[in-house]
Protein backbone atom coordinates (compact mmCIF):
# COMPACT_ATOMS: atom_id res chain seq x y z
CA UNK A 1 0.00 0.00 0.00
CA UNK A 2 1.08 3.53 -0.67
CA UNK A 3 0.54 6.43 1.71
CA UNK A 4 -2.72 8.32 2.11
CA UNK A 5 -3.99 9.81 -1.13
CA UNK A 6 -4.39 13.55 -1.53
CA UNK A 7 -7.87 15.03 -1.17
CA UNK A 8 -10.35 14.53 -3.99
CA UNK A 9 -11.22 17.65 -5.97
CA UNK A 10 -13.89 18.42 -8.60
CA UNK A 11 -11.33 17.55 -11.26
CA UNK A 12 -10.46 14.12 -9.77
CA UNK A 13 -11.34 11.01 -11.75
CA UNK A 14 -12.47 8.46 -9.17
CA UNK A 15 -12.73 4.74 -9.75
CA UNK A 16 -13.75 1.77 -7.64
CA UNK A 17 -10.94 0.11 -5.67
CA UNK A 18 -9.87 -3.34 -6.83
CA UNK A 19 -11.38 -5.00 -3.81
CA UNK A 20 -14.80 -3.38 -4.31
CA UNK A 21 -17.49 -4.77 -6.60
CA UNK A 22 -20.86 -3.32 -7.55
CA UNK A 23 -23.79 -5.56 -8.28
CA UNK A 24 -27.55 -5.53 -8.35
CA UNK A 25 -29.23 -7.49 -5.59
CA UNK A 26 -31.31 -10.33 -7.02
CA UNK A 27 -34.04 -10.08 -4.42
CA UNK A 28 -34.48 -6.33 -4.01
CA UNK A 29 -33.03 -4.78 -7.17
CA UNK A 30 -30.94 -2.49 -4.96
CA UNK A 31 -27.29 -1.83 -5.75
CA UNK A 32 -24.77 -3.47 -3.46
CA UNK A 33 -21.16 -2.48 -2.97
CA UNK A 34 -19.26 -5.58 -1.86
CA UNK A 35 -15.75 -5.79 -0.43
CA UNK A 36 -13.85 -8.25 1.78
CA UNK A 37 -16.18 -9.57 4.49
CA UNK A 38 -18.56 -6.64 4.10
CA UNK A 39 -21.15 -5.07 1.90
CA UNK A 40 -23.18 -1.89 1.71
CA UNK A 41 -26.66 -1.39 0.34
CA UNK A 42 -26.48 1.81 -1.66
CA UNK A 43 -29.17 4.44 -1.97
CA UNK A 44 -30.21 5.06 -5.62
CA UNK A 45 -28.24 8.32 -5.74
CA UNK A 46 -25.12 6.71 -4.29
CA UNK A 47 -25.41 3.85 -6.78
CA UNK A 48 -25.79 6.30 -9.68
CA UNK A 49 -22.60 8.11 -8.67
CA UNK A 50 -20.55 4.91 -8.37
CA UNK A 51 -21.76 3.59 -11.70
CA UNK A 52 -20.29 6.69 -13.34
CA UNK A 53 -16.88 6.31 -11.70
CA UNK A 54 -15.27 5.09 -14.90
CA UNK A 55 -12.70 7.77 -15.60
CA UNK A 56 -15.07 10.74 -15.69
CA UNK A 57 -14.25 13.67 -13.43
CA UNK A 58 -16.34 14.44 -10.33
CA UNK A 59 -17.47 17.64 -12.08
CA UNK A 60 -18.77 15.63 -15.01
CA UNK A 61 -20.48 13.05 -12.78
CA UNK A 62 -22.28 15.79 -10.83
CA UNK A 63 -23.36 17.51 -14.05
CA UNK A 64 -24.67 14.31 -15.59
CA UNK A 65 -26.69 13.49 -12.46
CA UNK A 66 -27.84 17.06 -11.88
CA UNK A 67 -26.38 16.82 -8.36
CA UNK A 68 -24.39 19.43 -6.42
CA UNK A 69 -20.63 18.87 -6.87
CA UNK A 70 -20.19 19.21 -3.09
CA UNK A 71 -22.53 16.25 -2.46
CA UNK A 72 -20.75 14.00 -4.93
CA UNK A 73 -17.38 15.06 -3.55
CA UNK A 74 -18.44 14.37 0.03
CA UNK A 75 -19.81 10.91 -0.77
CA UNK A 76 -16.79 9.83 -2.80
CA UNK A 77 -14.39 11.18 -0.19
CA UNK A 78 -16.11 9.07 2.48
CA UNK A 79 -15.72 5.96 0.30
CA UNK A 80 -12.15 6.92 -0.56
CA UNK A 81 -11.34 7.13 3.15
CA UNK A 82 -12.65 3.56 3.53
CA UNK A 83 -10.45 2.36 0.70
CA UNK A 84 -13.39 1.63 -1.59
CA UNK A 85 -12.69 4.33 -4.15
CA UNK A 86 -9.38 5.50 -5.55
CA UNK A 87 -8.30 7.97 -8.14
CA UNK A 88 -7.61 6.76 -11.62
CA UNK A 89 -3.95 5.80 -11.80
CA UNK A 90 -3.59 6.35 -8.07
CA UNK A 91 -3.62 3.83 -5.22
CA UNK A 92 -6.69 3.81 -2.98
CA UNK A 93 -6.60 4.68 0.67
CA UNK A 94 -8.17 2.62 3.47
CA UNK A 95 -10.66 3.11 6.25
CA UNK A 96 -12.31 6.25 7.56
CA UNK A 97 -15.64 7.62 8.71
CA UNK A 98 -19.01 6.27 7.70
CA UNK A 99 -20.44 7.18 4.34
CA UNK A 100 -23.67 9.02 3.68
CA UNK A 101 -24.73 6.77 0.83
CA UNK A 102 -24.92 3.60 2.86
CA UNK A 103 -28.15 2.59 4.52
CA UNK A 104 -27.18 -0.66 6.14
CA UNK A 105 -24.47 -3.23 6.12
CA UNK A 106 -25.54 -6.71 5.07
CA UNK A 107 -22.38 -8.60 5.88
CA UNK A 108 -20.71 -7.43 9.03
CA UNK A 109 -18.77 -9.41 11.55
CA UNK A 110 -17.93 -12.48 9.61
CA UNK A 111 -16.37 -14.97 11.95
Amino acid at each position, binding site marked *: *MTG*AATALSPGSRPQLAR*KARLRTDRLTGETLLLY*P*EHGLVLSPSAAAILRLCDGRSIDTIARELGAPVSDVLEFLTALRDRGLVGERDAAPAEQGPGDPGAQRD*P*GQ*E*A*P
Partner: protein
Amino acid sequence: MSSRPYVLIAELTYRCPLRCAYCSNPVEVADRAALPGADWQRVLGEASDLGVVQVHFTGGEPLLRDDLEALVARASELELYSNLITSGLPLTRERLGRLQAAGLCALQLSFQAARAGSSAAIAGVDAFLHKRQVADWALALALPLTVNVVLHRQNLDEVGAIIALAEELGAERLELANTQYLGWAYQNRAALMPSLAQLDAARAVVAAARERLRGRMEILFVLPDYHADRPRTCMTGWGERYIVVTPDGRAMPCHAAHILPLTFPDLRSQSLAAAWHDSDAFRRYRGTEFLGEPCRSCDRREADHGGCRCQAFLLTGDATAADPVCELAPHHDQVVAARAAAAVTAPPLTLRRLRVAR
Protein backbone atom coordinates in the same frame (compact mmCIF):
# COMPACT_ATOMS: atom_id res chain seq x y z
CA MET B 1 -36.28 -10.26 11.18
CA SER B 2 -34.23 -10.86 8.10
CA SER B 3 -35.60 -13.55 5.81
CA ARG B 4 -32.46 -14.09 3.77
CA PRO B 5 -28.85 -15.05 4.29
CA TYR B 6 -26.13 -12.74 2.97
CA VAL B 7 -23.04 -14.86 3.55
CA LEU B 8 -22.24 -18.49 2.80
CA ILE B 9 -19.34 -19.97 4.73
CA ALA B 10 -18.23 -22.94 2.65
CA GLU B 11 -16.07 -25.25 4.76
CA LEU B 12 -14.63 -27.31 1.94
CA THR B 13 -12.67 -29.76 4.10
CA TYR B 14 -11.61 -30.28 7.69
CA ARG B 15 -8.17 -31.43 6.57
CA CYS B 16 -5.35 -28.94 7.10
CA PRO B 17 -1.55 -29.03 6.88
CA LEU B 18 -1.42 -26.84 10.00
CA ARG B 19 -2.27 -28.04 13.49
CA CYS B 20 -3.19 -24.78 15.21
CA ALA B 21 -4.10 -25.29 18.83
CA TYR B 22 -6.89 -22.68 18.60
CA CYS B 23 -8.67 -24.18 15.59
CA SER B 24 -12.44 -23.72 15.66
CA ASN B 25 -13.05 -26.97 13.76
CA PRO B 26 -14.67 -29.89 15.58
CA VAL B 27 -12.43 -31.77 18.00
CA GLU B 28 -13.95 -34.91 16.55
CA VAL B 29 -15.47 -35.00 13.06
CA ALA B 30 -18.25 -37.26 11.81
CA ASP B 31 -17.22 -40.24 9.70
CA ARG B 32 -19.00 -39.08 6.55
CA ALA B 33 -17.88 -38.69 2.95
CA ALA B 34 -17.02 -35.24 1.60
CA LEU B 35 -19.73 -33.42 -0.32
CA PRO B 36 -18.99 -33.97 -4.04
CA GLY B 37 -18.09 -31.01 -6.26
CA ALA B 38 -21.37 -31.23 -8.19
CA ASP B 39 -23.28 -30.77 -4.94
CA TRP B 40 -21.11 -27.80 -3.94
CA GLN B 41 -21.88 -26.24 -7.34
CA ARG B 42 -25.60 -26.73 -6.71
CA VAL B 43 -25.31 -25.32 -3.18
CA LEU B 44 -23.65 -22.16 -4.55
CA GLY B 45 -26.53 -21.69 -6.98
CA GLU B 46 -29.13 -22.25 -4.26
CA ALA B 47 -27.29 -19.83 -1.99
CA SER B 48 -27.40 -17.16 -4.67
CA ASP B 49 -31.14 -17.74 -5.19
CA LEU B 50 -31.70 -17.33 -1.44
CA GLY B 51 -29.96 -13.95 -1.42
CA VAL B 52 -26.36 -14.79 -0.54
CA VAL B 53 -23.93 -12.23 -2.00
CA GLN B 54 -20.63 -13.25 -0.36
CA VAL B 55 -18.98 -16.62 -0.11
CA HIS B 56 -16.04 -17.50 2.12
CA PHE B 57 -14.17 -20.57 0.94
CA THR B 58 -12.60 -21.94 4.09
CA GLY B 59 -11.98 -25.17 5.99
CA GLY B 60 -9.73 -26.75 7.23
CA GLU B 61 -7.62 -25.77 4.29
CA PRO B 62 -9.74 -25.11 1.18
CA LEU B 63 -6.70 -25.42 -1.12
CA LEU B 64 -6.74 -29.16 -0.43
CA ARG B 65 -9.74 -29.46 -2.73
CA ASP B 66 -8.64 -29.87 -6.32
CA ASP B 67 -11.89 -28.40 -7.61
CA LEU B 68 -11.50 -25.09 -5.75
CA GLU B 69 -10.93 -23.25 -9.05
CA ALA B 70 -14.21 -24.61 -10.43
CA LEU B 71 -16.07 -23.52 -7.28
CA VAL B 72 -14.55 -20.03 -7.47
CA ALA B 73 -15.54 -19.85 -11.13
CA ARG B 74 -19.11 -20.84 -10.26
CA ALA B 75 -19.23 -18.17 -7.53
CA SER B 76 -17.97 -15.62 -10.02
CA GLU B 77 -20.62 -16.63 -12.56
CA LEU B 78 -23.23 -16.02 -9.83
CA GLU B 79 -21.67 -12.59 -9.00
CA LEU B 80 -20.88 -13.81 -5.49
CA TYR B 81 -18.02 -11.92 -3.82
CA SER B 82 -15.53 -14.70 -3.15
CA ASN B 83 -12.99 -14.71 -0.32
CA LEU B 84 -10.40 -17.45 0.03
CA ILE B 85 -9.58 -17.96 3.72
CA THR B 86 -6.40 -19.97 3.75
CA SER B 87 -3.19 -20.95 5.46
CA GLY B 88 -1.50 -20.53 2.06
CA LEU B 89 -0.48 -24.18 2.13
CA PRO B 90 -0.10 -25.88 -0.28
CA LEU B 91 -0.04 -23.16 -2.92
CA THR B 92 2.03 -22.14 -5.91
CA ARG B 93 2.08 -18.80 -7.64
CA GLU B 94 0.57 -20.47 -10.71
CA ARG B 95 -2.41 -21.79 -8.78
CA LEU B 96 -3.03 -18.44 -7.11
CA GLY B 97 -3.03 -16.92 -10.60
CA ARG B 98 -5.54 -19.53 -11.76
CA LEU B 99 -7.81 -18.79 -8.79
CA GLN B 100 -7.66 -15.10 -9.60
CA ALA B 101 -8.42 -15.80 -13.25
CA ALA B 102 -11.39 -17.89 -12.11
CA GLY B 103 -12.75 -14.75 -10.43
CA LEU B 104 -11.43 -14.84 -6.86
CA CYS B 105 -12.13 -11.42 -5.33
CA ALA B 106 -9.94 -11.40 -2.22
CA LEU B 107 -7.42 -13.44 -0.28
CA GLN B 108 -7.38 -13.80 3.50
CA LEU B 109 -4.09 -15.33 4.59
CA SER B 110 -3.51 -16.58 8.13
CA PHE B 111 -0.35 -15.94 10.10
CA GLN B 112 0.19 -17.42 13.55
CA ALA B 113 2.68 -14.91 14.91
CA ALA B 114 5.23 -12.31 13.79
CA ARG B 115 8.19 -14.71 13.66
CA ALA B 116 8.95 -18.17 12.30
CA GLY B 117 9.70 -19.77 15.67
CA SER B 118 6.62 -18.60 17.54
CA SER B 119 4.48 -19.43 14.48
CA ALA B 120 5.70 -23.00 14.36
CA ALA B 121 5.06 -23.43 18.08
CA ILE B 122 1.37 -22.68 17.68
CA ALA B 123 0.81 -24.26 14.23
CA GLY B 124 2.97 -27.35 14.69
CA VAL B 125 4.42 -26.70 11.22
CA ASP B 126 7.09 -24.34 9.99
CA ALA B 127 5.14 -22.45 7.32
CA PHE B 128 6.15 -18.87 8.03
CA LEU B 129 8.44 -18.21 5.07
CA HIS B 130 6.06 -19.87 2.64
CA LYS B 131 3.24 -17.65 3.90
CA ARG B 132 5.39 -14.57 3.32
CA GLN B 133 5.93 -15.77 -0.21
CA VAL B 134 2.19 -16.23 -0.75
CA ALA B 135 1.62 -12.64 0.39
CA ASP B 136 4.25 -11.48 -2.11
CA TRP B 137 2.46 -13.33 -4.90
CA ALA B 138 -0.86 -11.73 -3.92
CA LEU B 139 0.78 -8.31 -4.05
CA ALA B 140 2.34 -9.04 -7.45
CA LEU B 141 -1.02 -10.27 -8.77
CA ALA B 142 -2.80 -7.22 -7.29
CA LEU B 143 -5.10 -9.56 -5.39
CA PRO B 144 -6.56 -7.72 -2.34
CA LEU B 145 -4.95 -9.18 0.78
CA THR B 146 -6.22 -9.48 4.34
CA VAL B 147 -3.81 -10.90 6.89
CA ASN B 148 -5.52 -12.59 9.80
CA VAL B 149 -3.95 -13.61 13.09
CA VAL B 150 -5.75 -15.32 15.93
CA LEU B 151 -4.54 -13.75 19.17
CA HIS B 152 -3.95 -15.51 22.49
CA ARG B 153 -1.62 -15.64 25.46
CA GLN B 154 1.34 -16.84 23.42
CA ASN B 155 1.36 -14.17 20.69
CA LEU B 156 -0.41 -11.13 22.15
CA ASP B 157 2.89 -9.62 23.24
CA GLU B 158 4.02 -9.71 19.59
CA VAL B 159 1.10 -7.65 18.34
CA GLY B 160 3.28 -4.66 17.43
CA ALA B 161 5.53 -6.90 15.35
CA ILE B 162 2.47 -8.57 13.79
CA ILE B 163 1.18 -5.18 12.66
CA ALA B 164 4.61 -4.35 11.23
CA LEU B 165 4.61 -7.66 9.37
CA ALA B 166 1.19 -7.01 7.81
CA GLU B 167 2.35 -3.54 6.74
CA GLU B 168 5.49 -4.95 5.22
CA LEU B 169 3.48 -7.60 3.34
CA GLY B 170 1.28 -4.91 1.79
CA ALA B 171 -1.97 -6.09 3.39
CA GLU B 172 -4.95 -3.80 2.90
CA ARG B 173 -6.55 -5.19 5.99
CA LEU B 174 -5.37 -6.87 9.19
CA GLU B 175 -7.78 -8.95 11.19
CA LEU B 176 -6.67 -9.50 14.77
CA ALA B 177 -9.22 -11.77 16.35
CA ASN B 178 -8.79 -12.95 19.89
CA THR B 179 -9.43 -16.65 20.35
CA GLN B 180 -13.01 -17.81 20.75
CA TYR B 181 -13.02 -20.71 23.17
CA LEU B 182 -14.85 -23.29 21.08
CA GLY B 183 -13.54 -26.40 19.28
CA TRP B 184 -9.83 -26.99 19.83
CA ALA B 185 -9.47 -23.61 21.48
CA TYR B 186 -11.72 -24.78 24.30
CA GLN B 187 -9.49 -27.84 24.78
CA ASN B 188 -6.54 -25.44 25.06
CA ARG B 189 -8.30 -22.69 26.96
CA ALA B 190 -5.93 -22.61 29.91
CA ALA B 191 -2.90 -22.45 27.60
CA LEU B 192 -4.39 -19.74 25.35
CA MET B 193 -6.21 -17.44 27.76
CA PRO B 194 -4.35 -14.13 28.06
CA SER B 195 -4.06 -12.01 31.15
CA LEU B 196 -5.92 -8.73 31.35
CA ALA B 197 -2.59 -6.89 31.42
CA GLN B 198 -1.58 -8.52 28.11
CA LEU B 199 -4.88 -7.54 26.53
CA ASP B 200 -4.71 -3.96 27.73
CA ALA B 201 -1.18 -3.58 26.40
CA ALA B 202 -2.14 -5.07 23.02
CA ARG B 203 -5.20 -2.88 22.81
CA ALA B 204 -3.05 0.24 23.30
CA VAL B 205 -0.60 -0.88 20.60
CA VAL B 206 -3.47 -1.51 18.17
CA ALA B 207 -5.09 1.86 18.90
CA ALA B 208 -1.83 3.71 18.21
CA ALA B 209 -1.19 1.72 15.02
CA ARG B 210 -4.70 2.42 13.76
CA GLU B 211 -4.08 6.11 14.13
CA ARG B 212 -0.70 5.90 12.41
CA LEU B 213 -1.99 3.71 9.56
CA ARG B 214 -5.28 5.51 8.93
CA GLY B 215 -5.70 5.70 5.19
CA ARG B 216 -3.30 2.81 4.54
CA MET B 217 -4.27 -0.38 6.37
CA GLU B 218 -7.49 -1.19 8.15
CA ILE B 219 -6.99 -2.98 11.47
CA LEU B 220 -9.80 -4.99 12.96
CA PHE B 221 -9.34 -5.96 16.61
CA VAL B 222 -11.88 -8.39 17.98
CA LEU B 223 -11.83 -8.48 21.77
CA PRO B 224 -12.15 -11.84 23.50
CA ASP B 225 -15.66 -12.19 24.82
CA TYR B 226 -14.36 -13.80 28.01
CA HIS B 227 -13.01 -10.37 28.91
CA ALA B 228 -16.12 -8.43 27.95
CA ASP B 229 -18.93 -7.70 30.40
CA ARG B 230 -21.68 -8.47 27.93
CA PRO B 231 -21.83 -11.13 25.22
CA ARG B 232 -21.51 -10.62 21.49
CA THR B 233 -24.46 -11.27 19.21
CA CYS B 234 -23.87 -14.75 17.95
CA MET B 235 -23.37 -14.65 14.15
CA THR B 236 -25.37 -11.35 14.20
CA GLY B 237 -28.34 -13.53 15.08
CA TRP B 238 -28.90 -17.27 14.73
CA GLY B 239 -30.03 -18.03 11.19
CA GLU B 240 -30.28 -14.37 10.22
CA ARG B 241 -27.36 -13.62 7.90
CA TYR B 242 -25.02 -16.59 7.70
CA ILE B 243 -25.15 -20.16 6.47
CA VAL B 244 -22.27 -22.52 7.13
CA VAL B 245 -21.98 -25.63 4.99
CA THR B 246 -19.73 -28.31 6.47
CA PRO B 247 -17.35 -30.50 4.43
CA ASP B 248 -19.84 -33.36 4.59
CA GLY B 249 -22.73 -31.22 3.36
CA ARG B 250 -24.64 -30.22 6.46
CA ALA B 251 -26.08 -26.71 6.77
CA MET B 252 -25.54 -24.94 10.09
CA PRO B 253 -26.21 -21.39 11.35
CA CYS B 254 -22.69 -21.16 12.86
CA HIS B 255 -19.40 -22.95 12.30
CA ALA B 256 -19.24 -24.14 15.91
CA ALA B 257 -22.83 -25.40 16.06
CA HIS B 258 -21.92 -29.05 15.48
CA ILE B 259 -21.59 -29.49 19.25
CA LEU B 260 -25.27 -28.69 19.80
CA PRO B 261 -27.87 -31.45 20.16
CA LEU B 262 -29.58 -30.53 16.88
CA THR B 263 -30.01 -32.40 13.62
CA PHE B 264 -28.52 -30.29 10.86
CA PRO B 265 -30.08 -30.48 7.40
CA ASP B 266 -28.23 -32.73 4.96
CA LEU B 267 -27.82 -30.85 1.66
CA ARG B 268 -27.44 -34.09 -0.27
CA SER B 269 -31.14 -34.69 0.21
CA GLN B 270 -32.60 -31.24 0.76
CA SER B 271 -32.23 -27.76 -0.62
CA LEU B 272 -30.50 -24.87 1.07
CA ALA B 273 -33.80 -22.97 0.96
CA ALA B 274 -35.56 -25.75 2.90
CA ALA B 275 -32.71 -25.78 5.42
CA TRP B 276 -32.85 -22.00 5.86
CA HIS B 277 -36.61 -21.54 6.05
CA ASP B 278 -37.99 -24.77 7.43
CA SER B 279 -35.41 -26.79 9.35
CA ASP B 280 -35.66 -27.08 13.10
CA ALA B 281 -31.91 -26.37 13.38
CA PHE B 282 -32.24 -22.92 11.78
CA ARG B 283 -35.54 -22.02 13.45
CA ARG B 284 -34.71 -23.18 16.96
CA TYR B 285 -32.74 -20.13 18.16
CA ARG B 286 -33.89 -17.51 15.67
CA GLY B 287 -34.86 -14.24 17.28
CA THR B 288 -35.19 -14.13 21.07
CA GLU B 289 -38.32 -16.21 21.77
CA PHE B 290 -36.34 -19.19 23.04
CA LEU B 291 -34.56 -17.19 25.75
CA GLY B 292 -35.35 -17.67 29.42
CA GLU B 293 -34.33 -15.45 32.30
CA PRO B 294 -32.28 -13.38 32.90
CA CYS B 295 -32.29 -12.63 29.13
CA ARG B 296 -36.05 -12.61 28.59
CA SER B 297 -36.57 -9.46 30.65
CA CYS B 298 -33.21 -7.87 29.76
CA ASP B 299 -33.28 -4.66 27.75
CA ARG B 300 -30.30 -5.88 25.71
CA ARG B 301 -31.92 -9.09 24.48
CA GLU B 302 -32.72 -7.73 21.00
CA ALA B 303 -29.15 -6.44 20.71
CA ASP B 304 -27.22 -9.54 21.80
CA HIS B 305 -29.79 -12.40 21.64
CA GLY B 306 -28.34 -13.70 24.90
CA GLY B 307 -24.93 -14.26 23.31
CA CYS B 308 -23.38 -17.35 21.78
CA ARG B 309 -25.54 -20.51 21.77
CA CYS B 310 -22.55 -22.80 21.41
CA GLN B 311 -20.73 -21.20 24.32
CA ALA B 312 -23.86 -21.38 26.47
CA PHE B 313 -24.15 -25.10 25.70
CA LEU B 314 -20.46 -25.81 26.14
CA LEU B 315 -20.30 -24.16 29.56
CA THR B 316 -23.75 -24.93 30.98
CA GLY B 317 -25.11 -27.89 29.01
CA ASP B 318 -28.13 -25.78 28.01
CA ALA B 319 -28.08 -24.07 24.60
CA THR B 320 -30.92 -21.72 25.59
CA ALA B 321 -29.07 -20.41 28.66
CA ALA B 322 -27.61 -16.92 28.91
CA ASP B 323 -24.06 -16.94 27.51
CA PRO B 324 -21.89 -17.17 30.66
CA VAL B 325 -19.60 -14.38 29.44
CA CYS B 326 -22.43 -12.01 30.42
CA GLU B 327 -21.94 -10.70 33.94
CA LEU B 328 -25.68 -11.14 34.50
CA ALA B 329 -25.60 -14.85 33.60
CA PRO B 330 -26.03 -17.42 36.39
CA HIS B 331 -22.91 -19.31 35.24
CA HIS B 332 -20.70 -16.24 34.88
CA ASP B 333 -18.49 -17.56 37.71
CA GLN B 334 -17.05 -20.11 35.25
CA VAL B 335 -15.76 -17.34 33.02
CA VAL B 336 -14.43 -15.39 35.98
CA ALA B 337 -12.58 -18.52 37.12
CA ALA B 338 -11.10 -19.12 33.65
CA ARG B 339 -9.93 -15.51 33.54
CA ALA B 340 -8.39 -15.76 36.99
CA ALA B 341 -6.57 -18.96 36.02
CA ALA B 342 -4.82 -16.98 33.26
CA ALA B 343 -2.84 -15.19 35.93
CA VAL B 344 -0.94 -18.40 36.73
CA THR B 345 1.36 -20.47 34.53
CA ALA B 346 -0.19 -21.91 31.36
CA PRO B 347 -0.10 -25.66 30.60
CA PRO B 348 1.43 -26.88 27.31
CA LEU B 349 -0.62 -26.73 24.10
CA THR B 350 -2.38 -29.71 22.59
CA LEU B 351 -1.99 -29.34 18.84
CA ARG B 352 -4.94 -30.16 16.62
CA ARG B 353 -5.16 -33.48 14.85
CA LEU B 354 -7.97 -34.79 12.70
CA ARG B 355 -9.93 -37.21 14.85
CA VAL B 356 -12.74 -39.11 13.20
CA ALA B 357 -15.63 -40.43 15.29
CA ARG B 358 -16.05 -44.22 15.19
